[in-house]
């Protein structure tokens, strides 16, 4: 690790400025690698490969949860299955993914969970005084749209949102391709049309 730290004078460890500089550089390094990881993850959602993996897992899941032919809940089941497979592809690295997966397990205990949250919730610390009320309001709306992200900080929320959007776009591409394939009687849809900004 020392090799990455640029030319620091070897001051004794007790010097506070040395520690501060070192900590800041480590923080920046961590922040950069964190940023890089996130960026890679988002790019992955846009690849053909990821879409194929999703499609085959989705179809397998549909097979397992073989739907009854009653119409109204069937659509919901398909949607839930689509979301569950999407979340599993995120492999627990995202908050929205974990929220989707745990929401299914906790449906029965939802009431108890909500009560617990109310008891433990501390008054929200308003660190973001610089934002206008309209931005605050929209942040709140956004936090409700992305699963599991109601109480995130500004930067975490935007992180989750970026990943979530990329994943949703892939979900749409995959489900569209599957639907067209089936509805088209098995004729392959033109492969390029849907994959406008993806690379394999």
């Amino acid at each position, binding site marked *: 690790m020392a090799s990455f730290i640029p030319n620091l004078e070897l001051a004794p460890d007790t010097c506070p400025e040395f520690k501060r500089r070192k900590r800041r550089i480590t923080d920046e390094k961590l922040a950069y690698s964190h940023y890089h990881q996130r960026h890679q993850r988002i790019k992955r959602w846009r690849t053909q490969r990821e879409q194929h993996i999703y499609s085959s897992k989705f179809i397998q899941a549909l097979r397992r949860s073989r739907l009854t032919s009653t119409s109204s809940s069937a659509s919901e089941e398909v949607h839930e299955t689509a979301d569950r497979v999407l979340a599993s592809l995120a492999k627990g690295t995202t908050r929205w993914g974990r929220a989707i997966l745990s929401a299914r397990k906790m449906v029965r205990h939802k009431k108890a969970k909500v009560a617990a949250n109310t008891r433990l919730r501390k008054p929200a610390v308003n660190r973001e005084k610089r934002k206008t009320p309209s931005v605050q309001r929209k942040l709140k709306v*956004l936090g409700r749209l992305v699963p599991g992200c109601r109480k995130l900080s500004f930067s975490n929320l935007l992180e989750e949102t970026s990943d979530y959007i990329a994943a949703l776009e892939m979900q749409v591409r995959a*489900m569209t391709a*599957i639907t067209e394939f089936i509805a088209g009687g098995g004729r392959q849809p033109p492969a390029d049309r849907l994959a406008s900004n993806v690379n394999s």
Partner: protein
Amino acid sequence: MSSRRSRSRQSSGSRITDDQIIDLVSKLQQLIPELRGRRSDRVSASKVLQETCNYIRNLHREVDGLSDRLSQLLASADTDSDQAAIIRSLLME
């Protein structure tokens, strides 16, 4: 602008500077088809957030519609059509 920046450096506990906010918002802007390619100093944070919410809602609706369509197609798997044969082979190997 500079006064805001210096204030943020002094406020203890808050790690998010104005510059970071601007940076994050402009990154988000690049993901929204509506706003992609527009100069980020012309689009307010409020607008970016608004369009982000709209875009996510649209994507949700699309998936809803696709789930609908898919569930209808799957329900027709009991018939004799070509589609049904495809569905059966896809889903019932």
